[in-house]
């Protein structure tokens, strides 16, 4: 980790000094334990602010949309994939971005840790290769890191950025993912009534803050469908009928594009399991089109392409 951090700083300094980029998008230390915050470095003297650790969780590609300066961006596997999707969708100019790829072994989902502390506050945290040491008022605990990784990291198949301009550190082995859709299959096995109850229970928690949408690297519409008012496309209340429509339509909008970075679920203040929707759609796209988003700059979006061999069993005569 420390070596990768040093390399990131060196690369950032070099890119800025040689004027290959105008700005570096990375992470710096956050104000709370187990947190980092996005960091924009323009001056090569400031690269020491950049950090790399298991809490670098926010996808930074969002900041590349509409950016006129040439940017170097730190990207884990999922982040690089979302940048690729944005490039393919003509939202980011390939010539305007230098992807600094970092192999990733998963990031920590602090909500999973907090859930076990029964309201006690984490005041200090230290993360080692396999452990998380946390301290608070009158308590101290050592946790196995692998049990507290983000759900999307547990099922990740592309820990190494598939596309990058500069790679930092050694590639990490990819995970065997026979169980990638296990959670989704559990939901699929439910009866329609049980599924309805499951999704209703999740989505009635929604407070329409749109943190999921706004942090999503692929939700870049300049005007979102929920913000259309003339005429009003969808109800804007937090009644479950309205929140459900919002989340279903958002999930459909990222079909074939979602890279399962898991940011939507992680940032949700109300702990809604949003991946239950997006991962299901990812599964459909995989089954139907054998497509995984963001793996190559040459790929075409499955829902934006017609192939004669596309399945069409849904067409009823």
């Amino acid at each position, binding site marked *: 980790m420390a070596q990768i951090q040093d390399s990131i700083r060196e690369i950032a300094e070099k890119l800025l000094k040689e004027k290959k980029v105008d700005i570096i998008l990375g992470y710096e230390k956050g104000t*709370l334990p187990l947190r980092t915050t996005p960091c924009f470095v323009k001056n090569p003297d400031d690269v020491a602010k950049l950090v790399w650790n298991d809490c670098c969780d926010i996808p930074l590609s969002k900041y590349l949309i509409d950016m006129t300066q040439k940017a170097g961006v730190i990207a884990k596997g999922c982040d690089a994939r979302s940048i690729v999707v944005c490039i393919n969708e003509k939202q980011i100019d390939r010539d305007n971005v230098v992807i600094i790829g970092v192999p990733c072994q998963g990031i920590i989902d602090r909500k999973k840790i907090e859930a076990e502390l029964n*309201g006690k506050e984490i005041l200090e945290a230290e993360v080692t290769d396999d452990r998380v040491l946390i301290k608070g*008022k009158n308590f101290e605990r050592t946790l196995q890191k692998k049990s507290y990784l983000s759900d999307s990291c547990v099922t990740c198949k592309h820990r190494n950025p598939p596309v990058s301009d500069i790679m930092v550190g050694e590639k990490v082995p990819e995970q065997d993912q026979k169980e990638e859709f296990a959670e989704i299959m559990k939901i699929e096995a439910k009866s329609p009534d049980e599924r309805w109850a499951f999704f209703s229970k999740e989505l009635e*928690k929604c407070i*329409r*803050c749109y943190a999921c949408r706004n942090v999503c690297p692929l939700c870049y519409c300049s005007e979102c469908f929920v913000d259309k008012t003339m005429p009003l496309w969808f*109800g804007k*209340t937090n009644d479950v009928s309205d929140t459900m429509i919002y989340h279903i339509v958002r999930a459909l909008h990222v079909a074939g594009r979602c890279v399962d970075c898991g940011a939507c679920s992680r940032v949700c*203040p109300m702990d809604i399991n949003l991946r239950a929707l997006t991962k299901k759609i990812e599964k459909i796209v995989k089954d139907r089109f054998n497509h995984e988003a963001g793996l190559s700059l040459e790929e075409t979006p499955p829902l934006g392409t017609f192939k004669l061999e596309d399945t069409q069993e849904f067409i009823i005569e």
Partner: protein
Amino acid sequence: MTKSKILEKDRLKDFIDELSKENEVLAPIKTNNYFQFKELSQGEEISLDYQNTKQPPKEVFLPQTEVLFTYRTDEEEIKIKASPSQKEKRVILGIRPCDARALVLLDRFFSSGDYKDNLYLEKRENTAIIGLACNSPLSTCFCLPLGGSPFGGEGLDLLLKDINDKYLIETITNQGEKLIKKVKWLKDATKEDEEKAKTKKEDAENALKNALTVKGLKNKLDSMFEAPLWDQIHRKCVGCGVCSFLCPTCTCFDVLDEMTPSGGRRVRIWDTCQFPLFTKEASGFNPRPSSKERMRQRIMHKFNYFPKDFEVFSCVGCGRCIQACPVNLDIREVITTIMAN
């Protein structure tokens, strides 16, 4: 006022039962992984062993979605039906002092000027508030520098102070006194109990003394509308509404008409200055086109405009926005940057 009373912790349920005789009782209940204020069902046991609720109790008085009226149309006429008003007496138990203080700010907003917001005020009038003092404020708390206190009584009728195996109950208002008089079996607090509570208060306040410096902030902001620092401060903001929708003092709302040919309803829903649509005009022009202007509005409103109208910051330092911001944009850092400018 009545002398402070003592409630043994193992009699909390009996205390709630007494309150339930004449009131609906709302208290922090753990749902999912967090606490929310919910109505207690008959005989439901609660524990006041929690830091704070995920959302502030504002929701009880200003629901995120509130139907103002419904209507039905037929060939002859339009029938309008106003929403039923809140008549039942309620008690909210376990509000933290920061959140209770926020209700006082909301009261000022909803009752000042020519227009009184009856929907809000009616609910407030029919609700007694019992607070729970904070022995151990969180690292994200900063109520003290903003004029509150972890043991503050503003906005409360009664205040519970946790002194180890019992609660000392301080009576703050006449409404509180009426409530407490009905619970006849409560013993009077001893001098020793009072001392214990005093020490807890001092410890809690000491922990918050250096939480933030805001001296002169309001005046400083007077000349900062065009300051270049706003270009930097908003940079990482992704423009969601977490900060506002978890904020105990944000009051902005939108009013919508949901119509079908045979009827419909008018609802008010929470809104936030962080959303692009908030200031978008019918012409399509938006005076706050980017997150820079929107973020500036949030800070200016809380620390400059509101104090000008009501002589108090519209932030109580509960720290919810700090904990929940997706990108760790910490309002304390924003204030510190402004103060250093």
